[in-house]
């Protein structure tokens, strides 16, 4: 993406004020999206973003400057701006010698850019038909196709030079159903770190039918309960629980500032012994898969909690470097316009031993959550919420009435202790976008069916 000599010169410029570390991150991102709404393909959009960010660290201070100008002049100006901030007092010339790491290629079998736009658009119409075929009560359908190709190059003054080519493809459908009780929505999506071959294994009509059925089911839904109940979460439907309950709290930047309930608890029992939680950036073609993180290090599988014991936090490179330990390769950023932070990749609970149907049968009264939406956590207190978008009552060990949408609230450490059964039916969930300090990055999550003995349900029914 850039001439190695130029890269080395930019890094040297970054070190000119005596800083101990300089890094350049170059990104070229192209994306296409097509949207159908109200029975019509509304528009097809393309976008391109190309630029570089230079980060310079001296002591506790980091300077960052980014530019869309990838000429030598533009890059050197960014390096000087970043260096001016992270001024260590010294002046020096350091020549950076870059290691020659072979660039990582993409994993797409069919690059979306080679697929005709008409073929992409045709998927939308099929999804529209699929959803509407579920019945006249389906009044509105929105379908979105999206693909992106993100090529990155990272080099730093330690001599690292690495690059990656990340191709992602996704598809989502939202259906609106209307009846006597008003309107309801149903949503379903799929997305992988792969190319257009996604649609060899994904039937967009089936995806649309699932979204439509969710909306239709909720037309007959009753208000969710208000108060604390046992909650069974279906396989693949609620990995976001762990993302919020402890994932963010295990990010070393928050831990380091005392803003996490999990600070200082490494080696301790923080969860039920049934809980083994992993964050894995190498995982198949999952949505949160990366070849290298956005600080240039090869992605890894990290066990965060093993049999309920907190084994380690997640780190970015600069923080790990300061602490004299290896990075866990969780340094990610939304784009070249952003500083990297500690972020999750694919976060999941590993399989347990129980029969998922038996878990429901053994729950006399509670809520069965088939599909969760997003969530949010206050890592300092551990309190977190997540929304249920498909849920049912459990009465006498049977799944019965559908429930209207509501948020659930719990406290991370308490919920982790209150997981009393874990099923043997592990599945990954839908693609997600995790937001932190205003930056969004693609993440995956997953879990087998499980039960939490007590969660507070934010409904309106007594």
């Amino acid at each position, binding site marked *: 993406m850039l001439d190695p000599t130029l890269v080395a010169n930019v890094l040297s410029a970054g070190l000119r004020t005596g800083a101990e570390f300089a890094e350049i991150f170059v990104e070229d991102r192209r994306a296409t999206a097509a949207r159908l709404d*109200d029975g019509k393909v509304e*528009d097809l959009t393309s976008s391109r973003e190309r630029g570089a960010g230079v980060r310079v660290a001296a002591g506790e201070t980091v300077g960052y400057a980014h530019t869309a100008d990838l000429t030598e002049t533009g890059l050197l100006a960014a390096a000087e701006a970043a260096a001016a901030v992270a001024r260590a007092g010294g002046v020096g010339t350091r020549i950076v010698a870059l290691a020659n790491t072979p660039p990582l290629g993409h994993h797409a079998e069919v690059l979306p850019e080679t697929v005709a736009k008409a073929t992409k658009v045709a998927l939308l119409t099929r999804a529209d038909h699929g959803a509407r075929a579920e019945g006249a009560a389906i009044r509105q359908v929105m379908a979105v196709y999206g693909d992106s190709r993100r090529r990155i190059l990272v080099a730093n003054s330690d001599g690292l030079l690495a690059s990656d080519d990340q191709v992602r493809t996704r598809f989502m459908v939202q259906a609106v159903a209307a009846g006597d009780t008003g309107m309801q929505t149903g949503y379903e999506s799929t997305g992988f770190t792969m190319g257009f071959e996604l649609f060899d294994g994904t039937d967009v009509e089936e995806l649309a039918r699932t979204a439509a059925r969710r909306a239709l089911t909720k037309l007959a839904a009753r208000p969710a309960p208000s108060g604390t109940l046992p909650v069974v979460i279906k396989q693949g439907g609620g990995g976001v629980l762990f993302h919020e309950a402890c994932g963010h709290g295990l990010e070393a930047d928050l831990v380091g500032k005392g803003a996490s309930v999990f600070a200082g608890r490494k080696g301790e029992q923080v969860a039920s012994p049934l809980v083994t939680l992993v964050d894995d950036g190498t995982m198949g073609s999952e949505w949160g898969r990366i070849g290298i993180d956005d600080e240039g290090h090869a992605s890894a599988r990290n066990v965060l909690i093993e049999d309920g014991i907190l084994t380690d936090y997640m780190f970015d490179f600069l923080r790990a470097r300061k602490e004299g330990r290896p990075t866990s390769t969780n340094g990610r950023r939304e784009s070249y316009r952003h500083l990297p932070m500690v972020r999750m990749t694919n976060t999941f609970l590993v399989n347990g031993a129980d029969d998922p149907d038996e878990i429901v049968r053994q729950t006399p009264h509670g809520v069965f959550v088939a599909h969760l939406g997003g969530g*949010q956590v206050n890592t300092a207190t551990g309190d977190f919420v997540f929304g249920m978008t498909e849920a049912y009552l459990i009465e006498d060990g049977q799944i019965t009435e559908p429930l209207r949408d509501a948020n659930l609230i719990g406290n991370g450490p308490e919920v982790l202790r209150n997981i009393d059964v874990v099923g043997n039916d592990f599945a990954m969930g839908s693609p997600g976008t995790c937001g932190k300090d205003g930056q969004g990055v693609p993440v995956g999550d997953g879990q087998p069916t499980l039960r939490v003995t007590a969660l507070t349900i934010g409904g309106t029914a007594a």
Partner: protein
Amino acid sequence: MTELLDLARTVAGWAGAGEEVEVFASRERTTEVRAYHGDVESISSAEPAGVGIRVVVAGRQGFASAGTLDETVLKETLEDARDNAAFAAPDDWVGVALPDDVQAPDIELWRESLASMATAAKVEMAIDLERRVLGADPRITGVRSAMYGDAMAESAVVTTSGIASAWRLSLCYVVVDALAEAGGDTQTSHGLSVARVPGDLDLEAAASDAIIRTTRLLGATKPDSRRVTVVLDPEVTSSFLSVLGSTLSGEAVLKGRSLFANRIGEEVAASGVTLIDDPSDPSAFGAEPYDGEGLARRRTVLVEQGLLRRFLYNTYAARRAGATSTASASRDYRSAPAVAPGALALDGGAGTQAELIAGIDEGVYVQSVSGLHSGVNPVSGDFSVGATGLRIRNGSLAEPFREATIASTLQRMLKDVAAIGADRRWMPGNAAGATLVVNDVSLGGT
């Protein structure tokens, strides 16, 4: 600004025969400083720029964007948009805005003094902010982040239909997240201040807000589930209005996605509720002289004394509904214009927060909510969010609560509004805050 307008004019001039073209170009200068432990943690500076081009040919719309103003790329971007248009379904109402006779408000949102402010002074503000929080109360154990940020933004829209609008604005803010601890309990909250120039930022208010809002939550417990009167903090009200605003989009109405469809003229809220969107008001931080399609921003009364009066429209939604645009096209260069409010506010509040609380025997004061994006469904109206705050007993604030939910529906909440405070305050984003009292909300706890 002239430069950006010229550039947009040049690109629009490349339109082919029979093509409508809209060029939206923007350029910013931003700085963000974070302080930690009395020192600079990071400084980011940048001058991002980009262009979004919309092409309409025979009723088909295509869009393309690029994060640069480089002329070669602009040509390619126009080509992309043109090519994309061929794949959209024809739609009679699609098109760029037409000039109308509404004069742009004469508002000056740009402050040259921000441009000349030294980075060192910005750093000093962030460090000062952290210091004010750390030293003030023995229960404050740390500051998660103390930040100063600013942006000076210029935008221009040019269309082949004769629109050529350009404007610029500056904004700056400070925000601090405090951590407090007592008896093994940790709490966190923030304080912030927003202004057009750093001299108008109130560091002391931001710091004391962070301290009060954090320390008063110490020892919070989970409340009992019941129906209560809730008093929403101005920040919470601002978020609530912002969600409500999305249901008043004329586009959502046309597409059968709004719970307010076919209800113009009906009573949708308590009689004390008047909701106005007025991005031409320079005191709002969402103020702009023009919308994302280049039309002059204007005042729109959405709800008047409880009666639904109007929806918000961009050019497309207005044409399709047989209405006129309310100049509510919202966008950045990466997106085609969508419908959104610019500066929503409840009109005519009365009484201070303390006066409103004094009238409540039993209830809760909601200081902050979480999960707005996951728990509020703007189509069905279901409303359910995580809540933290203080109990209200005999007209006064009492013990703190946490790990609770408040739930109702948007429809019911509007009807259940019992009082609006006179403490209107513009927030970052597109809605103003004010203390809001809502009856009969489900509080979920133990």
